[in-house]
Structures are given as C-alpha cells and as structure tokens.
C-alpha cells in the first residue's frame, strides 16, 4: 500500500473517504482506478492535479503524491 494526500473539491468532497485526506491505496493505482474505487462518476471530474500539476486519468499514482480533483466550475 502507498499513502497519498487526497483533496476533492466542491461537489466531489462528499466522496472523500472516512479517513480524510490521508488515504491509502494499492500500488500501481491510476487516477482513473481511484475515481472508480471512490465511487465518483467519472464524467464529473474535470481537472486532475498531481503535486500541483495537471495530469490525466491514466497517471499512475506514487507514494506521497498530492492528488487533487476538481469538477467543472462556471458560476459568476
């Protein structure tokens, strides 16, 4: 298992596991796998950030990565 720092923004926050931001996942987990494991409908994840950089869902998550996900926000 590897540890990640998981941040889910706006309407995604309700999918944050009970343990909160410090989250354990299996090695070789992609962001798409994580989205599925958390039960997040994939079409509402618009932006994926790993350690402050934009990545796509195929990124293979590494130990101690900071993983952030953001839905589409357009209000004014």
């Amino acid at each position: 298992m590897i540890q990640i720092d998981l941040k889910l923004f706006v309407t995604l926050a309700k999918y944050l596991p009970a343990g909160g931001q410090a989250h354990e996942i299996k090695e070789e987990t992609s962001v798409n796998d994580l989205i599925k494991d958390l039960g997040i409908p994939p079409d509402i994840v618009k932006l994926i950030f790993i350690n402050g950089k934009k990545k796509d869902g195929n990124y293979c998550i590494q130990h101690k990565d900071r993983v952030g996900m953001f839905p589409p926000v357009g209000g004014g």
Partner: protein
Amino acid sequence: MVNQGRYDRNLSTISHEEQALLARSHVAVIGLGGLGGGVCEMLARTGVGTLTLVDGDIFDTTNLNRQLLSREENIGGSKARAAKERIFAVNSTIQINALQAYADETNFYGMIQGADVVVDCLDTIDTRFLLQESAQRAGLPIVSGAIAGVCGQVTVIFPQDSGYELIYGKKKQAHSPGVETQTGNISYCALFIASLQASECIKVLLKRGDILRNKLLIADLWSNSFEVMDLL
C-alpha cells in the same frame, strides 16, 4: 473635481507612472453579477480610467445574497445601469460604457474591441468559450474567474494560449453550466474571487508581478485551501 487625494493611499504601492498608466487603461468587464459587481468597483477605486460594463440581465431577489450591485429597491432593474450608477458614484472621473446586452458570438467582439483587458465574470462555461474566441480575435488577454459554493478559480488567458480548453476540456465536451447549479454561490466567495480577478487585471495592465498565465488558482474556503496549479 474630487481627484485631489483620491489615489494618495495607492501611491506607496502603485507608482505615479503606474497610476497614470491605469488612468489611460480600458477594461471590459463581462457579466455584472457576483464577480463582476465586485470587479468593476475595485477597478474603479484603483483608478482604471475607462470601464466597459456588460450584462443583459436584470436583478431578482435571488441576487441579493451576493451581488454587490443588487439592492432591494433595484429588483427588476438593469444590472448594467446599476453598475454605471454605482461606479459613477464611486469615481466620477472615469469613463463608463454600460451596455445592457447579452453577449453572444455576434456581438462579443464589438463589446471588447478597444479594451486593453477583458475580465470574464460570466456564469456559463459555453459563453466563456465564445468570449475567448472573440478576445483571441481582438488580441486581448482575459482575466477569468468562476465560482461554485465557497470554491472558486482564477486564471489569465493570453490570445495565443489554449485557455479554457485546459480547464474544461474541448468546447463540445465542456459541461455548461457547471456544478454551481448544485451549490449556489456565497457572497464572500464571489468577492474573494473578484478580488483576485481585480488584482490579476491590474498586474496585466501594469506588466508587474506574477500572473496566473497557464496556471489555475483554486480556492476552497471550507478547508482554507489555496493552491496554484500548473495547467501545462
């Protein structure tokens, strides 16, 4: 004339030359709701000399929770007119072009032509793409803000940048509207993001400071998360 002393408290942070540059500058604020109402007031107080203020909408009671320009007595009134009256009351020395019009692909270009910067305070994602196309055609940078609940984002898009595609994906795949239809919008978040937009706008005009170009500032006020993400 009330300009005597008006900018005295600016001048330790903004030089005389920079203040004069702002006075010669023209900013188009597109959308005069939660974001735009704050942005236009801050730009007027900072001393931007010409403001084009665009919104086709009228106020309703649901605007009162967050939109600075809305008041109980102007429900049913034009947002553009309210903006003009408010900005004139704050700073009568600046030029105000208030347009009560909904922006679309046929009129965006005409609205922003002649400005130095466009501030995107719109409330739908597909309209933001249209604005970007017009701003690219006009060769103008966009300072963009968007909010949902107590979260928000800010970025700066120059004409040669990919811009919204980096945030929302391809235009055809972009959701419109976003999750703000589920969360609503809270006043202090709108004004927080509006403040960041005003700041980025002034920095672009003055060519000063770190600009959020190809970067996205994301704020979540529930968790006090403020992060600048690299979009490239």
